[in-house]
């Protein structure tokens, strides 16, 4: 039986199709103003018998397709444990939210927390800052940050204030890559505070779109004094977890 796991995030939509333990298909597309249409595009040509959906758009999909829905928390916990069985903590930094999940040795979720309403410390925040610093994409932004030898301090975590803080730092002559590093530092320290509160010990899986960011990955590994594992494609962990859930249910 072929099981599809679909993760409708705010920035990207991810699909994983599995047959038994084999991954038949894994792909992702950027989300648009019309998430349903994005999902149709992504599913085009994919064949599956049963679907499990997760992510912020899960309820939307549930109205159109027949599928089971699970929360992102559960999906990320399942997916992370499957790629890294000793994991006790999951840090997922996505486009619009950040989650920290603590799981016990049996894989049960013990505690979780998410960031509050605003985009502070999420992928979206990094995108806006990259733009404010005139980098053409996140990759360039992250690589530049990695070359900096010192970081400028960023005090504001509100997207709007941080943007003007960044602009004024530059106008006062700060080096662009130092500001870039400062921004990464700021979101990493904020996120780790969340993670350390929710899951203070145990091996960590770092997932979500921001785990693709080299600088964020480096800082997180350096600052967390415990093993951090980043899956080969950190973005599909939710979709993978959803597919695994479907498998266990069938």
């Amino acid at each position, binding site marked *: 039986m072929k099981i599809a796991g679909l993760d409708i995030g705010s920035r990207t939509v991810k699909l994983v199709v599995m047959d038994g333990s084999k991954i038949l298909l894994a792909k992702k597309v950027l989300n648009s103003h019309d998430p349903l249409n994005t999902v149709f595009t992504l599913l085009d040509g994919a064949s599956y018998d049963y679907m499990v959906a997760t992510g*912020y758009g899960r309820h939307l999909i549930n109205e159109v397709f027949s599928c089971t829905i*699970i*929360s*992102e*928390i*559960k999906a990320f916990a399942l997916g992370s444990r499957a790629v890294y069985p000793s994991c006790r903590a999951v840090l997922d930094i996505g486009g619009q939210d950040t989650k920290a999940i603590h799981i016990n040795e049996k894989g*049960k979720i013990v505690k*979780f927390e*998410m960031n*509050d309403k605003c985009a502070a410390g999420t992928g979206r925040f990094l995108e806006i800052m990259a733009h404010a610093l005139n980098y053409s994409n996140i990759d360039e932004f992250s690589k530049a940050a990695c070359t900096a030898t010192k970081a400028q301090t960023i005090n504001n975590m509100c997207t709007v204030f941080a943007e003007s803080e960044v602009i004024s730092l530059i106008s006062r002559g700060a080096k662009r890559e130092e500001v870039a590093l400062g921004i990464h530092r700021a979101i990493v320290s904020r996120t780790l505070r969340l993670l350390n509160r929710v899951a203070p010990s145990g091996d960590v899986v770092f997932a979500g779109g921001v785990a693709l960011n080299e600088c964020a990955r480096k800082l997180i590994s350096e600052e967390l004094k415990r093993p951090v594992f980043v899956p080969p494609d950190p973005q599909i962990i939710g979709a993978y977890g959803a597919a695994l859930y479907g498998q266990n249910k069938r």
Partner: protein
Amino acid sequence: MSGYNQMWSELGLDLEAHDALLSVLGDSYHNIFMTQKNRPEGMKYFDFVMSEVHGLRIKELMDAKTQGKKVIGLYCVFVPEELIIAVDGISVGLCAGAEFNFEGAEQILPRNLCALIKSAFGFKLGRVCPYIEACDLVVGENTCDGKKKAYEVLSPYVKDLYVVDLPQTKSNAGKMLLKEEYLKFIAKLEEISGKKITYENLRKGIDIVNAKRKAVLRLAELRKSNPIPISGLDSLLINQVFFYDDPVRFTNSVNALCDELVERIKRGEGVFPEGTVRVIVSGCPMAVPNWKVPYIVETSGAAIVGEESCVGERGTRWLTETKGSTVEDLVENITDRYFKIDCAIFTPNHSRLEHIKEMFERYNAKGLIHYNLQFCQPYIIESGHFETDLKNSNIPTLRLETDYSQEDIGQLKTRVEAFIERIKG
């Protein structure tokens, strides 16, 4: 409802804003309550009360006023309704549960203030609450810092504001203070009503309020059943109407509903599908029309089987004793009763935690949702060490912090769903 326009304008309401408010309220009431499946017939009464909450009920208040009765508005369950009934007054709850005219409220109050307080001011300044306009006396109380200071700001906006002082510890001195304050409040009530409190009328007040509490406690008891005969939303609504309706009529209606629920239970009939997770909600009070979190919870695979809240069991679980034969004795009984309320403004406040645990067992719940209004320090602080303690008692807990806005509904839903999945394992 336009039949009430004249009454509303006489009360000084802003008719246009008020119409807009009623229409939003009507829609959300419909979407939240009327879409529930298999509701008890007895809820029709409460649907009616809600549809007339600014209409017929206000008319009743106005009629009562012409007969010389006094309408007295309150914001807290520490103000004894028994005393108000004793002087033939009518008490109405003034707490508000909707984000209305926060811009107005924020002109005279800081932004970082709990939504309950801001909402009350928003309604008052926006001139859309007929209850506060109908009041002969508004009673505040020194509870949290937010309310305590906000009454100073409210004072010039209402005809007559009276503030009851409250103790903060459950000490002998604290109890003496509470009794003193109740005696002063009696003097105030006697002054505005021109009626003296006697053993007979106070005893009558106690009996009426006790009967009302017994009715909602009976309802609470029936929610222990499996399947659950009534939703948490409907039960919350009843606990909210508790503060507005005529007490005797309310009591009869709740009891009639309970009779129906008893029959349902006999037939094994419920309002939720099998496998629905039973949860308790604890924390800040939810005033009308604050149904946000219960709605999210009950559309995510869980059922609320109890509220540890002032709009719920914290406010109703104690009855007032009737022992003794003088006014003095009865005031003593009233003081005893109210002194037990375990609001987070008290320090320490152990009995609240015990009550949460006890409710968890009693209602056979599988999880606890701690509801915090943003900026409510007393409850937010308590929820931290409570969570640790509850964890040690194997009570899965989810702490939610929110306000009256709609923007975090998606986030809250994700958290609640994940919590329910976690409970189901």
